[in-house]
């Protein structure tokens, strides 16, 4: 067997190995209920802002504390705490994708991805990230 063929085989093996490893990193979209089952683990949760409930962001008190209530796909509402500033146009977001974990009754999130009805007809996606 030629050396290049051996290298090729090694590369294929590495590539498969890499894909299997990285696929382990992929997250899943959950609901509050399923995330609650595995408390303390991080998930993506999709939902909408519950506009009836209060939204707190007071930078004078704490510039890194923003809380609101989100209703997930099953209709369950939970308080969400985001350690960062309130993202631009937050109230107007049609849909939220949160990354974080359940702790007690609250959902602690470190990333908010918003889908905004933009000034155009199309979808515009805005993002607010807090580096971990």
């Amino acid at each position, binding site marked *: 067997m030629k050396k290049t063929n051996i290298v*090729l085989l090694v590369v294929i093996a590495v590539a498969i190995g890499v894909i299997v490893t990285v696929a382990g990193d992929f997250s899943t979209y959950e609901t509050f209920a399923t995330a609650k089952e595995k408390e303390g683990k991080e998930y*993506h949760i999709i939902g909408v802002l519950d506009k009836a409930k209060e939204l707190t962001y007071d930078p004078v008190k704490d510039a890194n504390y923003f809380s609101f209530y989100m209703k997930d796909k099953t209709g369950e509402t939970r308080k969400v705490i985001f350690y*960062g500033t309130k993202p631009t146009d937050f109230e107007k977001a049609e849909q939220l994708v949160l990354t974080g974990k359940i702790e007690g009754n609250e959902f602690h999130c470190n990333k908010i991805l918003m889908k905004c009805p933009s000034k*155009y007809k199309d979808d515009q996606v805005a993002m607010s990230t807090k580096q971990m």
Partner: protein
Amino acid sequence: METKYIGEHLLPGQLGHFFAVLSFIASLVATIAYYNAVRAKEAPLEASWKRLARWAFIIEVVSVFTVFGILYYILYNHYFEYKYIWRNSSRTLETKYLLSSFWADQEGSFLLWSMWHCVLGVILIFTSKKWEAPVMTVVSFAQLCLASMLLGIYILGYRVGSNPFLLLRQAEENIGLPWTTSPDYLSMIRDGNGLNPLLQNYWMVIHPPVTFLGFASMVVPFAFAFAGLWTRQYKEWIKPGLPWALFAAMILGIGVMMGAAWAYEALTFGGYWAWDPVENGSLVPWLTLIAGIHTLLAFKHTGQALKSTFFFFLISFVLILYATFLTRSGVLGDTSVHSFTDLGMSGQLLVYMAVFTIPGFTLLILRRKEIPDVKKEESTYSREFWLFVGALVLLIAAIQITFTTSIPVWNKLFGLNMAPPLEPEFHYNKIQIWVAIVVGLLTAIVQFLKYKDTPRKQVTQKLLWPTVAALIITVLIGWLGRINFDTYGAGFLVAIYIMLFASVYAVIGNTAYIFSGLKGNMKSAGASVAHIGFGLILLGALISSSKKQVISMDRMNMLGTGFFGKESKENPRENLMLPRNFPVQMGDYHVTYAGDSTAAGDPKTYYVVRYEKKDPASGAVLEKFTLYPDAFVNTKGEEGLTPNPSSKHYLTRDIFTYVTAVPIKDNGSDTAKYSQHEVQEGDSIFFSNGYMIFTGLQPQPENGNYKPAPGDLAVGAQLQVYTKNDEQYKLQPVYYIRDSTYQYSVPDTLFPQSLYVRFSKIMPKENKIALEVKEAGAFSDYIVLKALVFPYINVLWGGVLVMIVGFVMSIYRRLKRN
């Protein structure tokens, strides 16, 4: 009945659409004619086909440029009856950003891409001689595909392309709306929607043209490889194709790095690279083309690796088309910040990808046996063997990035529900760091190997000193630079150290090679110089990312709200509130927010942020500078802000600052009212945070805001303020009568206490004065900002420049040799 609309400018749109259709037809003719020129057996027939093809291509070039000109014309004149203009621009937009508007949307950017194809096509017609017909068949065909994106014509009920000259009233979403039947609807549309504030940046003016030149030039190496397969001239295409491949790699590389610079300068990614799908989309084809260039060199010198060269050249352009599909079809949905909007052209984009992929790879598979190959075994001490290994490592990098970026595609294809990784940066970094290590080491060593075989002794001899030097420098950087990035554990830190060595080694090895291998012959040093640049890019990326430091840590509130201990590591509290004129300690600096400012004709608000570095012992100011991070506040009725960062650049580091929140400034929010006090000399007035004593009147008042004029009767009230924190201040509000009739008062303010005092009246009878005191409930003027220090980021940018120089040197040399 036909409605007569008032004030519309229909001629440019009709002309524009005509030329868009003409460019489609002309490129169809050019494709067919060039195809026949390749197939023609007799010389006269070939020549006549070629003549036709050239004319068709020239007509197509003229059409594309005309379309470009017309679209720019209606954009410049703000003809909002056109949807594209209405959607992407506004009257208030600065003229320099009109070009940004031009390519802000799908149609304009396809046009830009198509324009570059035209330019490259004309150059190819003049320079590629016998390769003109087959290569231009491919280029014309690519033009045909791009032209179809701008057609906007219904064929069999399916809309092909999207016409940039579509009228607003004819747009799908507006059909049937009442205003579309009103003849004077234009009088109601006074202004367009405006350009997304994120795109109002000079990078947006220059980055897309360069990136699309990169995209456009990628078709040329593909075309040469395809032409080689098609005409069965498997080896001959290499020579004319190589400079084009180098050119494409250089331009696409610049485009990618410009995107990184844009992200760094203008977007709030918090850095220059975020592994965003759009960034990945152009990086992956670059990686595979670099791999292809290296296997091509191996083939050129030894006859090995021709098949893999074909593979890399073909796949690179296919990946460009795949990136186009990802970013333009809307499939990325909520995983990317800056993908284009869905125009309902996913089908067409898939066809575009298929018509290049299928013929290319079918030919490669069918004719694989005909492709010349050397049956001899390579030596482990040969350059070609390791070039091949390096190319495959780059391929692995490409596969991993593509695999993760394509998550939304997998979801669609297999009906899955996968989400992107929780920590995307680490997800990519932990694999790519090993790729970078192997590539860095190979870059350092392989130059010292000769093609076919190298005497063992010579390798060790020549590598000894560079290796020792690189080791020493690595240890020094690691020791003095205190690289201890342990967020992801010790294992990752080890990887960082190995990569540190690999990148230093790449720089040193290639520098040494210029002297010991090439004997200082700079003419053929292009590759080495490019490799040095590449090593510096790796080094700069590594140091600036692993030593990146957030200095705007909010330490004050850490205790207050109870996020201490375990939580505090996870929630670094990176935003800091700065009340106006109140210095706050941040890292080594005292930072003061000194107010905001706006300028006429510029929609942005600039925030003045003063940095001061003081000697801790003496308190003397060591260093002082002001940054002006800016933001679009409340654009188009949107609440909130779109910030742009501002950085202080040093040779060795950058201080990067951007505003993350500002209070909503409207007059109604200042609810605090003045309370009236009538006081005699010696009386005190209490406020929430202390008290003040009225110590007497002063006939010649001293107040910065009072400008005396002759004939003024002016008096100042001297106030001594004592706060709870034992601070003392003096205030002096002024009361005066000008021209014997008008009464004025100049208030005085105490910013740290948000205290406002107004001197409203003198009551000579009671020997009293009236003072009005207002306390804002809280700091009413503040900003919340985030500040980061990026050390040695200039190594990265410097590396990019060095790499470009290396590419230019190589291209020049190859062209001279041809």
